[in-house]
């Protein structure tokens, strides 16, 4: 048997040589969370090398911004990170306001915090639910979506849309709360805190198999997290105390203190647990907003055609996945000269190849799910 031996491949006693297998995971795959493609080089079940291939969902979002007036931006940025549109809109509206030097009224800022934190809960629910599904637990995802549905219902009655809300405006928000909305919100928060979070904790956190699958898997060093510019729950699970709401507070976060949820373990379990803890913190923040909600107008009077002065700005918010920022250049016209979105999923995804090396196929899914990417955000 004539076999050409490549360096690194061993020839067994029977003359066979073992070869690595290349496995294309995605873009059509149940748990790549969208259209991500991972080219895995496998040695048996062990990952030798991983190359993520992105761009299947690229819509040229930043170019779209340049071709639309500032007014039209929120509707498009909704689709960037499609699991937390409200937070994206906060980012866009905040950037344009900073560019124009407008300060939205206090009530609008508080409303933004309220809907933003609700959106964070909704987004983390999807993250945790689908993470359970990735690991083979079928029930958590349905319970999570059940609770998320209530948040989306509230958003629908507030903005008219379940999903792409188009609710923020430059200088404020579009609508005030409809009648009974705040009571509904309070009722949801009570129920969510009292039953839903403990249910999830019971189903996943204490589960031996879940712990075995996640603890010690996909460890990110704090220095590594800084080097890769990881943000959000991924970085906070590695012990990096960075949260835009605390370190560079914006809007009403300057008045409402946020407790950073930190964990030192840096593994998949820590990332999951940080998300769980952040949901509790978001409930607390929502309650604070409901207590202190000021009166007054919900929007400043701004011209229909927004023409910010020439200049550039960089504005970031803490999205559910990390620091989401918008860099904008205005040339004084109705259209942005340049808009660049710093997408947290995109940045967080870069650490994946380094994390996967040496793990098993099952861990690929566990690690990818724990980073919690949204492909709309990665590809923009």
């Amino acid at each position, binding site marked *: 048997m004539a076999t050409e031996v490549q360096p690194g491949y061993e020839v067994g006693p029977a003359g066979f040589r073992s070869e690595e297998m290349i496995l294309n995971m995605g873009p059509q795959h149940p748990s790549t969370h969208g259209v991500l493609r991972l080219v895995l080089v496998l040695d048996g079940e062990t990952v030798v090398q991983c190359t993520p291939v992105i761009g299947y969902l690229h819509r040229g979002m930043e170019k779209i911004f340049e071709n639309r007036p500032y007014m039209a931006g929120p509707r498009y940025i909704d689709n960037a990170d499609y699991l937390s549109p409200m937070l994206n809109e906060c980012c866009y509206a905040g950037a344009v306001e900073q560019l124009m030097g407008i300060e939205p009224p206090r009530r609008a800022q508080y409303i933004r915090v309220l809907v933003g934190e609700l959106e964070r809960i909704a987004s983390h629910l999807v993250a945790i639910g689908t993470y359970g599904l990735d690991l083979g637990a079928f029930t958590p995802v349905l319970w999570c979506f059940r609770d998320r549905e209530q948040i989306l219902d509230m958003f629908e009655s507030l903005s008219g849309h379940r999903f792409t809300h188009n609710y923020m405006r430059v200088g404020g928000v579009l609508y005030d709360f409809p009648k009974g909305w705040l009571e509904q919100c309070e009722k949801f928060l009570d129920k969510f805190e009292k039953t839903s979070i403990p249910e999830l904790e019971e189903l996943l956190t204490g589960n031996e*198999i879940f712990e075995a*699958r996640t603890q010690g898997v996909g460890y990110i060093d704090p220095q590594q997290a800084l080097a890769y510019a990881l943000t959000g729950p991924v970085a906070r699970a590695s012990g990096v105390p960075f949260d835009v709401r605390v370190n560079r507070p914006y809007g009403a976060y300057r*008045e409402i203190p946020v407790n950073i949820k930190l964990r030192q373990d840096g593994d998949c379990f820590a990332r999951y647990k940080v998300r769980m803890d952040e949901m509790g913190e978001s409930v607390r923040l929502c309650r604070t907003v409901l207590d202190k909600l000021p009166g007054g107008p919900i929007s400043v009077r701004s011209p229909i055609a927004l023409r910010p002065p020439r200049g550039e700005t960089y504005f970031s918010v803490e999205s559910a996945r990390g620091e989401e920022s918008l860099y904008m250049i205005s040339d004084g016209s109705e259209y942005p000269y340049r808009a660049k979105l710093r997408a947290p999923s995109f940045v967080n995804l870069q650490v994946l190849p380094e994390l996967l090396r040496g793990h098993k196929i099952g861990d690929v899914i566990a690690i990818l799910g724990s980073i919690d990417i949204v492909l709309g955000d990665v590809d923009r």
Partner: protein
Amino acid sequence: MNDVVQNIIHFFVTFLFSLLFLMGAATILVYLERKVMAWMQDRYGPLHVGPHGALQTVMDVAKLLLKEDLKVSSADNPVYKFAPMVFFAPVITAFVVIPFSPYMTAGALSTGLIYYVALSSIDVIGVFMAGWGSNNKYALIGGLRSTAQMISYELPLILSLVGVIMLTSVLAPGCTGPNPDLNTCGVGSISFTQIVAAQMRPESPWLWFVLLQPLGLVVYYICGLAETNRSPFDLPEAESELVAGYLTEYSGLRWAMFFLGEYGNMTIVSAVATAIFLGGWSFPGAAIGFWTDHLGSFGGQLVFNIICVAVFLAKMFALLLVFIWVRSTLPRLRADQLMRFAWLYLIPLTLVNILVTGALLLFIPPNTLVQGDVLRIAVSAVVNWGMLVFVILSFRRLAGLTSKGKLPRWVRPAKGPVTVVTPAAQSQTPPTAQTPELAAGAGAARK
């Protein structure tokens, strides 16, 4: 001559019953699973086809029968086409030995347990053929995984039944009286009918082996989950990792054969557990004399057998519900954890169980108390329950499943706090009206 005819009729009735029952039970089980899981997950499940969606699975099967028989052009043709049959045939065949009632069983097989175990291990060949013949990488990984898994879990599955067989050696008829019959005593039985009979002797009608060997049932059931590729051991077809594992390239009827075979396997595992651990068809008043006295010989037999079948099925479906319950609760293990669990945890556990059971039966003398082996049986039951409780309490540590509290060395976080240098607040002007306590709160946040 009359005996031969009777035997043939007996065999055909049982075989047809098994075949139809398998299809029926699998269909019902699929519906049951979808419905029960839906209830557990706050949703409705099938609703529209038939009353409460009861005909949904029937329609699904009909759809699968009518689908085009797709084949991958690069597949290994004979292996690919033969695999579903290799998987499905042992499932039907294994069903023959299950004793549903005193009449409905192939009594000729006195080696029922071995027969069942042997047939259930043929399945793995079908799965591996499917994985290999599909010429698909996901299918290949799934097939290899399932080969490793099913062979590994075969061992503790058999070993967990040994404890029961040892107990039947003591409980065999003629063994417990004052003058033990040495021909049957001390041997133990691997015939399903005799194991069922041992659990319902007149002097101890409720002596189900689950009371004497609860650990055996638990281990058997865990291995049954793994044998049938059910959650949390559903790695061969792990949806989120391997798309559909060895089933990836199958569709239509061939896929349906795997599907029904899998649910048939679950049914068999539950039926065997029912027969061996839950007393089979025994129920309160399980005495044929009562019925023949009231309804005559034929009528009494008929009614009695129908009731027995119903009781057996009720127990079996109760066990099947546990399958569903487990599936909707637990996540999936990783391949290496799965193997470690079988070899380093379950097999030693079953060996210890056999050792302890045997030692108790050996060292505690028979006939210590007035009637039979009360002492021996009671002590071994208590010890086994104690072992079960110990195993459950020390599960984490024994199974080595979790590294809670002691992460591996290379996973420990770096020493010293991490500091992030960031600019101060963003360049917006602060809100106009600020109350003093709010300002204090904001200060606390920045700190």
